[in-house]
């Protein structure tokens, strides 16, 4: 969930950690203090490219209370559509990009008796902001991170400032997950971040061992997308593409249309818009069941379209 007011970030430094990993440090391009962040937060970065802009989310890896610098680590994905390729090849120190303010749905649990972090590869990034906070609060932590054998050194270096005896870097594919999960005391919370396959495997193993959903937390960067569709603006006749990783509200805002919004989470009613044609896919908490089945209203901040074309009264 983004907050609509992107911030301009200037690249202060780029550091190659390995052939496919780069750490990038940003400062505010307008000289203002950066919006406050918190452990586990991420920003959505807009990276310009030849075939259009790409918007990817990256966890902030630095000290969460730092208001002058944001740091991210980006993996160059071999078959990427362009976002990470652009980051690795085209960006230079001094470039200015726009980013969403930090948001987070991946948060440390205050009531946890123990925090168990399991991750893989680039999934280490949100953990890098968790670890200093967990240590500062002297909390029970256990961490298992699975990386390619040729990257063990890189990741050990990344974890060096946060090193603790209950932390292990494993070379190779994630195996022995059940052994890690078995025998964890009551009140342990599990945080998972890494390649989709690893996250699914760890989650499945936890469920097999009887862990409840409320104790399993995964970083999905608040994935809120869906099938792309076309929105037609009745008053002007304009048609806009709503991309799979973009909300209807974001598409309207990107096109310069002044749609009111407040919570951007489907709860407050502020962005209520009339639907004139097409079938909305409701994902909000505001409309009543009757209003939803009538199909003449939509909350663009979270809802999408079942029909390929949706006509709204804007």
């Amino acid at each position, binding site marked *: 969930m983004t907050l609509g007011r992107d911030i301009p970030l200037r690249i202060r430094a780029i550091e190659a950690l390995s052939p496919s990993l780069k750490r990038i440090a940003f400062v505010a391009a307008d000289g203002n203090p950066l919006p406050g962040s918190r452990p586990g937060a991420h920003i959505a970065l807009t990276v310009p490219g030849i075939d259009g802009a790409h918007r990817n989310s990256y966890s902030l890896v630095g000290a969460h209370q730092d208001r002058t610098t944001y740091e991210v680590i980006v993996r160059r994905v071999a078959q990427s559509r362009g976002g990470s390729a652009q980051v690795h090849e085209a960006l230079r120190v001094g470039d200015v990009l726009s980013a969403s303010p930090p948001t987070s749905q991946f948060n440390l649990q205050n009531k946890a008796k123990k925090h168990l972090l399991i991750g893989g590869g680039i999934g280490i990034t949100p953990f890098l902001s968790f670890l200093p906070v967990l240590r500062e609060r002297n909390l029970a932590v256990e961490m298992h991170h699975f990386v390619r054998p040729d990257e063990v050194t890189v990741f050990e270096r990344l974890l060096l400032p946060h090193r603790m005896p209950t932390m292990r870097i494993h070379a190779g594919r994630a195996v022995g997950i059940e052994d890690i999960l078995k025998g964890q*005391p*009551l*009140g*342990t919370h599990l945080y998972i971040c890494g390649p989709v396959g690893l996250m699914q495997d760890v989650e499945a193993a936890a469920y097999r*061992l*009887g862990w409840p*959903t*409320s104790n399993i937390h995964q970083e999905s960067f608040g994935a809120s997308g869906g099938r792309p569709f076309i929105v037609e603006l009745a008053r002007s006749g304009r048609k806009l593409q709503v991309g799979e990783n973009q909300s209807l509200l974001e598409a309207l805002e990107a096109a310069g249309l002044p749609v009111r919004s407040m919570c951007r989470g489907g709860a407050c009613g502020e962005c209520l818009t009339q639907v004139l044609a097409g079938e909305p896919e409701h994902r909000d908490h505001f409309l009543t069941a009757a209003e939803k089945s009538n199909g003449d209203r939509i909350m663009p901040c979270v809802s999408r379209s079942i029909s390929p074309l949706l006509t709204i009264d804007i």
Partner: protein
Amino acid sequence: MDQGIKSRPKYEKLRRDAAGRFHLLLADQAVIPPDTLDHDSPVGAFDECWTIERHSKAIPEADPNARTHGFRSQEHMLIALRHRLAREHMGLRLYAVGTEPFVWAVHGVGDEQGLGHSEMRLNATGSTARRVYCNHCRTISAGVTTSIFQCTGCNASLFVRDHFSRRLNAFAGIQIDAEVPGDVPPAEELYL
């Protein structure tokens, strides 16, 4: 009389949670009435069952693999529960059947030992007599069956509300004649 207070706990027959790995059932009687459990989830469906025998010679089995254990009283049982949960592992589900004060006392120990709401299931049955927390003097009086009663701590005539605190395991009691001292309506026997 429905005070219209929403959010009271709702209870249903206990059913083993298929997603759990180990199922521990606690009851406040020696024999668990079958109609307090879902018919698909009889006592035998649970891995272990603890009961309260209510006599002084009851003692839990020495064999840790025993499937049933009998205790002398609620207090005797909860001491053992605290120690057991401290050694337990994720995947456990805790179930309690008995009076409302009993099941929430079990819930309190579970919460203290790290169990979350979804890992505990409660069925309050039998007497609906209430524990009432006097909001003025903080004394909790047990076994209250009437709508108005005299606080055992400060003597105030308390109206027993339907607002329930799971943490305190008690309903709120507020002085009924605070505005006009002496103006106390007749009490009704409601919570039997």
